[in-house]
């Protein structure tokens, strides 16, 4: 402990721990919500495509438009644009919860495209086979589409989760809390480079762990 104190004199480990928990909290909620929302959007994108189960050009165009717009807006601008929406929804524009709407709206379209790509990789013949057995559309979705694209869905959410961690750090600069806020306010603005350094190392560790878990499950589910 003494060694750490001399090496990083300005780091308040209790604050650091709290910031880490805040970052993990935001990561957990935003990744889960992004996964669900992205999955639904991605499925809709795929299913409404020409030649697929729910072929529907207007719906396809609306979803694709939504996805493309929100995927293209730089995250830091998206946060500012969404301030009125966030204030309405959460009641404040500061703190971890206030960061969540922007995080999810920024990341879900990104993941939706990955879901769509993953679903397109599925052999059309397998879907045809399921139809020939009399499967309903819902059965095709949860018995064929999702299991057959699972490895790609997992590796997609891994990439998205890592992108989200960098979004969360960015959100920290505008007051979301977590390691980003700590690194910016205590580290950068007060010239305490050791705080910035330790925050970075912790973020890296989180990223590595997520990558490792993602790779593990991608491999485990891939029976091809």
């Amino acid at each position, binding site marked *: 402990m003494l060694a750490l104190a001399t090496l990083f004199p300005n780091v308040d480990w209790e604050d650091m721990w709290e910031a880490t928990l805040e970052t993990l909290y935001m990561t957990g909620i935003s990744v889960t919500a992004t996964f669900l929302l992205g999955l639904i959007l991605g499925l809709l994108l795929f299913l409404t495509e020409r030649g697929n189960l729910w072929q529907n050009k207007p719906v396809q165009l609306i979803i694709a438009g939504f996805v493309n717009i929100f995927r293209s807006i730089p995250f830091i601008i998206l946060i500012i644009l969404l301030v009125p929406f966030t204030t309405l929804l959460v009641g404040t524009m500061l703190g971890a919860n206030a960061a969540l709407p922007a995080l999810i709206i920024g990341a879900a379209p990104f993941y939706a495209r990955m879901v769509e790509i993953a679903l397109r990789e599925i052999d059309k013949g*397998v879907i045809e086979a399921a139809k020939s057995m*009399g499967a309903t559309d819902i059965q095709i979705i949860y018995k064929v589409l999702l299991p057959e694209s699972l490895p790609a869905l997992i590796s997609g959410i891994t990439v998205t989760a890592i992108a989200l961690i960098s979004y969360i750090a960015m959100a920290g600069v505008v007051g979301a809390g977590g390691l980003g806020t700590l690194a910016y306010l205590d580290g950068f603005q007060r010239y305490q480079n050791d705080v910035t350094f330790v925050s970075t190392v912790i973020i890296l560790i989180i990223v590595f762990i997520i990558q490792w878990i993602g790779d593990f499950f991608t491999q485990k589910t891939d029976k091809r």
Partner: protein
Amino acid sequence: MITLKNVKKVFHTKDGVVNAVDGVNLTINKGEIFGVIGYSGAGKSTLIRMLNMLEKPTDGSVDINGESLTSFNNKQLRIARQNIGMIFQHFNLLWSRTVRENISFPLEISGINKKERIKRVDELIDLVGLSGRGDSYPSQLSGGQKQRVGIARSLANNPDVLLCDEATSALDPKTTDSILNLLVDINKKLGLTIVLITHEMHVIRKICNRVAVMEEGRVVEEGPVLEVFRTPKRTITQDFVKQVTEPEETEETIQHLIQKEGHSQIVKLTFVGGTAERPLISDLIRKFEVYVNILQGKISQTRDGAYGTLFIQIDGQPETVKEAIYHIQQQEVEVEVITNVGIGNTVS
């Protein structure tokens, strides 16, 4: 059992209108193996997909077991499809499921409970000869084994009809034969009606009772396999029949002999059924003053009897040769005197 009436399928593509299937009428009897042969693009793939409404006909009606599939709504169709099995050229198994889970898939769809599913899957694994491979994933199986899983899966809900979409086209000849044998086996055991499409006459010859030949969306010839083999009317049918009866180099060999001078005649004999098994040649040599030179011959076994062709060269006095040929004709053997390859003059 299965009746198609004036079935049409029109596709509207960027390059215009395509009549994939153009007014097909067919009746397929219960318990028979019915083959549809044609080159790619003939419309056979679309045709077989209209038997379970994976493609909806633009016009005409499809009846199976007295039920008009063309008038069914989606829900009725899904239930009807549980009664129509289908296997595919590329097997279309779910790679994320084991053999056992793949076979279980249609049972899950039809709402069978878990205990019964396990029992039924075990029966099916035995039926298709995959005992011990139940827990393998498709990626660990050979092509033939994958198709066996496909067959087991298609039979899970005890269907009346099995549709085979080029089921052996992705397999090597030996594996093709083992899958064809399996199909004949289940056809006999379960009394299943099988409809298959293929571009290989070998498949038709080996297992079909009746065959329809498709060209440009139409059925141009139809009948019992042996009869179509004996008297193919259309050029396309003759080409298909040649696939199994004449080795490719036959034409060249015969062309070469025809060009030689001499009194000899080259004759193509076609045997059907019992006549294929009689010692015609020795009979010929004993009775007439002729020399017989066997050029090429082949006997193929169809489900309803043997079918063979034999190319011989008969040499001798012109008069005697003529008598000899006349004699062969009396033996219920079809005789074709070949003067030019491709244009055979049948002696009558």
